[in-house]
């Protein structure tokens, strides 16, 4: 098990593995996103109270779910980077931040667009929305902190500490609608007991959540590959790769 773990620390190995994964994951993701959107937006019934405006759920909820899950990926990569001083973990952590920020931003914007016709306001400082805004700042903070250091080893350390401290925000976001009185409704998809969303609406939603997980994975790997090539540009294997491409 440890040998596999240490293999992840090898840039050429990770580069080749991610290339092999992306070759089939990328087309699957594109097809799933298109199919899920068409299913959710065109082939589901309107909601009995909201009409068609509820359909934004097929973008809003997947983006929010993966924004939260992506934070754990970033924090775990940060912990590995702190404990094992593994460069590839730094790269993974660094690669998560802009993707997570984009997803959080999408969740906030779509929520706001839905909130105006449903609640009657674009924005309200309730617990769910405010903690989600903090998540956006945490992601942007990791990006900014990384860029602020000249010394990248030091930058990775600082970012890892920030992302680990920020993990407390994730259960707060998740439980905010249960712990406090908020305008945002509680979760409709429940792990225990029945979901309060009709199955005909739930299946495309679950499908879109999976598609967004795949999208996150693709974006993460693409980001990491670019960063690996950048950092390893002087090594023999990258030169060989560039020569191979350039020569043919």
């Amino acid at each position: 098990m440890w040998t596999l773990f240490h293999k992840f620390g090898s840039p050429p190995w990770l580069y080749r593995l991610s290339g092999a994964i992306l070759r089939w994951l990328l087309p699957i993701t594109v097809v799933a996103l298109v199919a899920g959107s068409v299913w959710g937006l065109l082939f589901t019934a309107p909601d009995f109270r909201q009409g068609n405006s509820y359909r934004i759920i097929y973008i809003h909820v997947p983006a929010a779910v993966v924004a939260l899950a992506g934070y754990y990926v970033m924090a775990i990569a940060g912990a590995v980077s702190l404990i094992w001083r593994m460069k590839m973990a730094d790269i993974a952590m660094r690669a998560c931040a802009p993707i997570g920020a984009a997803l959080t931003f999408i969740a906030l914007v779509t929520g706001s667009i839905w909130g105006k016709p449903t609640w009657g306001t674009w924005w309200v400082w309730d617990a769910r929305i405010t903690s989600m805004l903090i998540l956006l700042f945490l992601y942007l903070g990791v990006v900014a902190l990384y860029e602020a250091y000249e010394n990248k080893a030091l930058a990775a350390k600082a970012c890892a500490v920030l992302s680990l401290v920020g993990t407390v925000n994730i259960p707060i976001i998740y439980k905010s609608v249960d712990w406090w009185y908020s305008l945002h409704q509680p979760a409709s998809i429940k792990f225990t007991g029945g979901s309060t969303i009709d199955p005909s609406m739930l299946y495309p939603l679950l499908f879109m959540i999976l598609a967004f997980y795949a999208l996150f994975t693709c974006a993460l790997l693409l980001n990491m590959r670019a960063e690996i090539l950048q950092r390893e540009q002087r090594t023999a294997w990258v030169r060989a790769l560039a020569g191979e491409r350039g020569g043919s």
Partner: protein
Amino acid sequence: MHPVRKQRLWLVLFLVVFSSSAIGLMAYALRGNINLFYPPVDVAAGLAPVGQNIRVGGMVVDGSVERSDNSLEVRFAVTDYEAVVPVVYTGILPDLFDEGQGAVAAGKLDENGVLQASEVLAKHDENYMPPEVAEALEASKSRMAEQAARQGYGQ
């Protein structure tokens, strides 16, 4: 595992646990301020300040909505099934505002315990279903009520 790495692992765990409990305690101390609105039971108990901007949230009482004939003034009451707070509002209500549905009203409580609202928001619940399913649910509910009524007469 290398002892140095083991030590760093403990340090990371300590960092996460310590910062989480610190922030958790802060959130616990500020819990009253994190709530978006007061439930009517708190307003009835006098916990909500009078004459200051507050929000009160709950379900709009069935049959309580009264619209004025010559202005945009609306009167209604919100309840958490323990207490009721009357609300007066002048303006346009959100589309999803309805009797028996959640609403959050922002404004000032006057001396009579009426909330003079400056903003009313509809609170959507977590139920999503197609209109046919909602109708079927409604129909089965009324059928059950009928049945219960009939059984009641039989006794």
